[in-house]
C-alpha cells in the first residue's frame, strides 16, 4: 500500500509541471470574464462545494482555516474535459487549471494565518473557425483564430481566530489581479497575396476585496458556517491603458453541517455572488447577472487500510454561471464524487474528485467533466 501511495503521489506531482497551456474554445462556460471555478479544494469539490465554508483548503471562509491543524500547504491540478453540443455538432475541448495554492500556519494557540492564490474566473480558451470574406471584391478563404490565456486571480491573506471552543472567526484581504493575454489572427488561404492579421492584446485586472467569516457550533454535532466577501473597486487596463472601472463581486455564503456520524460530515450550502457589480468592467454587450448556488454533500469515513484513513465524498450542486451568451444565461447542475486518503502518519493527504456538470443556455448544451487532484501537507 505504501508503494501504491508513493507511486500515486509521484504521478500526481508529475502532472503539475507537465501540464501545458490549455485547450478550450467557444463554450458556454467561458463566456464573459470567464468560468468561476468556485475556488474549491479537491475535498470541497468532492461534495460539489457543500463543504466549502468549513474547508481550510478552499479560500472562501477565513474562519475555516483553523481546521487545518498546525499548518497547511496544498495545491492541486484540475483538468476539465468539456463537450459542447451545438446544432448537431459536438466539440470536445480540454482545459487544465491550477485553481488553488494555499499555505498557512498556526499563530499562537488560537490564531492561524494563511496566504493563498486561487482562480476566481478562468479565461483560458482557443477558438478557430473558417469562413470566407470579401477582400477587394474577391471572396477569399480565411481562418479566424483566437487564443486567450489568463484569469482573474484571488490573492488572499487571511487570519483566523478561535474565540471559544464553539466559535471561530476570520478575516481576509483579497487582491484581485491577473490578465488575459489575447491573440487574434485572421489568415488567408492565399498567403502570398493577402497579409494576415496578427493582434496581441492584454486585458489586465486590478481590484480588491475584504472578507470575513465564522464557524460556530451552537449545538453538539451541528456546525454553522458563513462568510461574506465585500468587493472593492476594480478596473481593467487594455494594453496598459486604463479601460474600465467597476467593482469586485460581493459574495455571501452559508452552510449547515452535521458531524453526528463519526468520521462523517453532511453539509448543505447556499451562496450568492453579485457578479453584476463587474458589469461596468465589460462592454455594453456583456451579459452578466448575480448567481445563486445551492449545494449538498456528504463526506464519510471509509475503512482504514493498513492504518491509512480513507474518505469518500459525493454531492450535488445547482447554480447559474455569471455570464450569458446570445441573450441567455447559463445554468449548471453538477454531481460530484470524490475520495481521499491520509498517509505519512497523517501529515499528508491526497484528495481527488470528479465532477460532472451539465450546462445549458437556451438550446445550447454543454457537458463538463472536471477532475481535481490535490495534495495537502500538514507538517
Amino acid at each position, binding site marked *: 500500500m505504501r508503494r501504491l501511495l508513493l507511486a500515486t503521489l509521484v504521478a500526481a506531482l508529475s502532472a503539475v509541471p507537465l501540464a501545458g497551456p490549455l485547450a478550450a474554445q467557444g463554450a458556454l462556460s467561458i463566456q464573459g470574464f470567464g468560468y468561476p471555478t468556485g475556488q474549491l479544494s479537491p475535498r470541497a469539490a468532492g461534495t460539489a462545494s457543500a463543504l466549502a465554508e468549513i474547508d481550510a483548503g478552499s479560500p472562501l471562509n477565513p474562519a475555516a482555516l483553523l481546521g487545518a491543524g498546525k499548518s497547511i500547504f496544498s495545491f492541486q491540478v484540475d483538468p476539465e474535459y468539456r463537450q459542447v453540443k451545438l446544432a448537431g455538432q459536438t*466539440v470536445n475541448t480540454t482545459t487544465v487549471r491550477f485553481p488553488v495554492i494555499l499555505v498557512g500556519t498556526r499563530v499562537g494557540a488560537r490564531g492561524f494565518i494563511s496566504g493563498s492564490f486561487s482562480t476566481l474566473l478562468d479565461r483560458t480558451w482557443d477558438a478557430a473557425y473558417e469562413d470566407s470574406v470579401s*477582400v477587394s471584391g474577391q471572396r477569399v478563404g480565411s481562418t479566424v483564430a483566437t487564443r486567450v490565456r489568463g484569469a482573474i486571480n484571488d490573492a488572499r491573506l487571511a487570519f483566523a481566530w478561535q474565540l471559544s471552543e464553539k466559535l471561530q472567526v476570520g478575516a481576509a484581504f483579497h487582491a484581485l489581479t491577473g490578465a488575459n493575454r489575447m491573440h487574434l489572427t485572421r489568415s488567408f488561404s492565399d498567403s502570398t497575396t493577402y497579409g494576415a492579421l496578427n493582434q496581441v492584446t492584454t486585458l489586465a485586472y486590478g481590484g480588491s476585496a475584504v472578507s470575513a467569516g465564522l464557524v460556530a457550533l451552537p449545538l453538539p454535532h451541528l456546525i454553522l458556517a458563513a462568510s461574506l466577501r465585500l468587493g472593492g473597486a476594480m478596473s481593467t487596463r487594455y494594453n496598459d491603458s486604463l479601460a474600465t472601472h467597476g467593482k469586485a463581486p460581493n459574495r455571501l455564503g452559508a452552510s449547515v453541517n452535521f458531524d453526528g456520524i463519526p468520521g462523517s460530515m453532511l453539509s448543505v450550502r447556499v451562496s450568492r455572488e453579485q457578479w453584476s457589480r463587474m458589469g461596468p468592467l465589460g462592454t455594453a454587450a456583456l451579459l452578466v447577472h448575480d448567481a445563486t448556488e445551492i449545494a449538498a454533500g456528504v463526506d464519510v469515513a471509509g475503512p482504514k487500510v493498513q492504518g491509512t484513513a480513507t474518505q469518500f465524498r459525493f454531492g450535488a450542486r445547482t447554480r447559474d454561471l455569471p455570464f450569458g451568451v446570445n441573450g441567455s444565461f447559463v445554468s449548471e447542475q453538477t454531481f460530484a464524487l470524490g475520495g481521499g486518503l491520509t498517509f505519512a502518519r497523517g501529515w499528508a493527504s491526497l484528495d481527488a474528485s470528479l465532477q460532472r456538470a451539465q450546462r445549458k443556455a437556451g438550446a445550447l448544451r454543454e457537458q463538463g467533466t472536471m477532475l481535481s487532484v490535490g495534495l495537502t501537507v500538514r507538517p
Partner: protein
Amino acid sequence: MTRLLLRRALSVLFVASAAAALGACNEHLDAGSACPSLCPGLSVPIKDTVLSPVLAFDTTLVGYPSVGTELGIPLASRGDTLDVRGVIRFDSLVTFFAPPADTSRPVTQADTAILRVRINLTQSRLPASVRFEAYDVDTIADDGNTAAVLALFRPDRLFSARTLTRAEITDSLIFPISSGWLMQKIQTGARLRVGIRLVGSGPVSLRLHTIETGLQSEIRYYVSTDTAVKQIIVAPYSKTPLEPALLAYDYRDYAVVARNALPAIGNQALATGGVPARRTYLRFNIPQWLLDSNTVVRATLQLTQIPMRGFDQGDSVTIHGQAVAATSLITDLYRSSQILIPQGMFVGDSIRVAPADSGVRSLEINSLLTVWKSQAGTAEAPQRAIVLLQTEEGLHGAEVRFFNARAAAAVRPRLRVSYIPRVTFGVP
C-alpha cells in the same frame, strides 16, 4: 478479503486520477464548430479604400543593366526601327609563347586564326539567311563614346563575315581571321576590338553569350607548326578605362544601340524594358494612419498600360517589382534603382503583358507595406519605393509603358488597399 478489494479499488481510483491529470497535458484542440455562435466579439471587419494619388514621385530611368553587365548581347537588325550591335574587346593578344622544354620566344605566326562566339537563340527572330559581320572597332575615343564605335562599322573595317541560313545557325559561330592581319596586331601590340553586326534577309535578332553568362567569346590561333605547342586561346580583356579600374571588366563585352525608333516616352508615361533597358522608379506616399493603426490585408498597385506599337509588340514579357533597399540618404535615383531587395522578397507578384496590350495591370505589394510599417522612423529605413523592371532586362526590345502620376486621374497609378482596423478584441 475486503481489505484486498478495497486496496485494489483505491489503486484503480488514484492511478486513474493521476493518469487523467497527465492525459490532460497534451490534449488536441478541435477548432471551431462552436464558433462563431459561442465566440462573440470575433467580428473582424475588412475595409477597402483606393489611394490616389499614391505616388510622391515617379520617373523612368534608362541604361540598365549598366554597360557590360548584360546577361547577353541582344544583337538586332530590325530595318529602321532597331539596330543593336555588340563589341568584344581582346586588348591583350598573346605575343610570346614557350614550346615544351624550351625558352620563351616571340610569336611570329598566327595560323588558323578564328573568332568564336556563342549564340543564344532564346526568343530569337531569324529570317531565311543572316550575315554576321565582324569589324575592327578599335578606337582611341573614350570608352563611353558609342558614336565613335558605331562609326567604325564600315566596310574598310570589316575583317570577317559569315552568311548562314536559318538552319545553319546553331549555338556557336566561327569567324575566320586573316593570319597576316592578326599578326600585324600581335607584332605591333595593337588591341583587337571586335564589333559584331547582323544583316538579315528580314528582321533578325538573337543574343550573344557574354562573360556574365559563362560562355564568353574567344580568339584562337596556332603560333607554331609543332603539334606539341598548344593552340593559343585569348579571352576578352579590356585595358580601358584606367579609372575606375573595375569598369574595364564590364567593357570586355557589351552592347551598343545604333538605333531605337520607338517614340519618346513623353511626360505622362513610365516605361520598362527595351534596349537600352528602362526601369520605372515609383516612390510611394502611404498615409501614416493606414500603417500605424491598421493591418493591411491586401495592397494592389494598379497601373494603366499604354499600348505600344512597334517591334516585338506582340511578344509577352514579364515585369516584376523590386523593393528599393537604398535609404533616403542616397539621392541618386539611378543608384537607388540598382540597390534593390532581391526579386521575390516582399514583392512576389509580376505582370505578364505584351507591349501592344492596354488596360489596368495589378501588382500585389502587401508584404512590402508591412516592411515599411515595421521600419518606419528608423534612420536606416529604405526608401518607400519600388522599381519595375523586365525579367530579361536589356535582352529584349519589347518596351512596356504605363501612365504616370501626371496623367489623368482615371489612369494614373493608384493603390487599392484592404485593411483591418485595430480590433478591440477580448473585452467581454
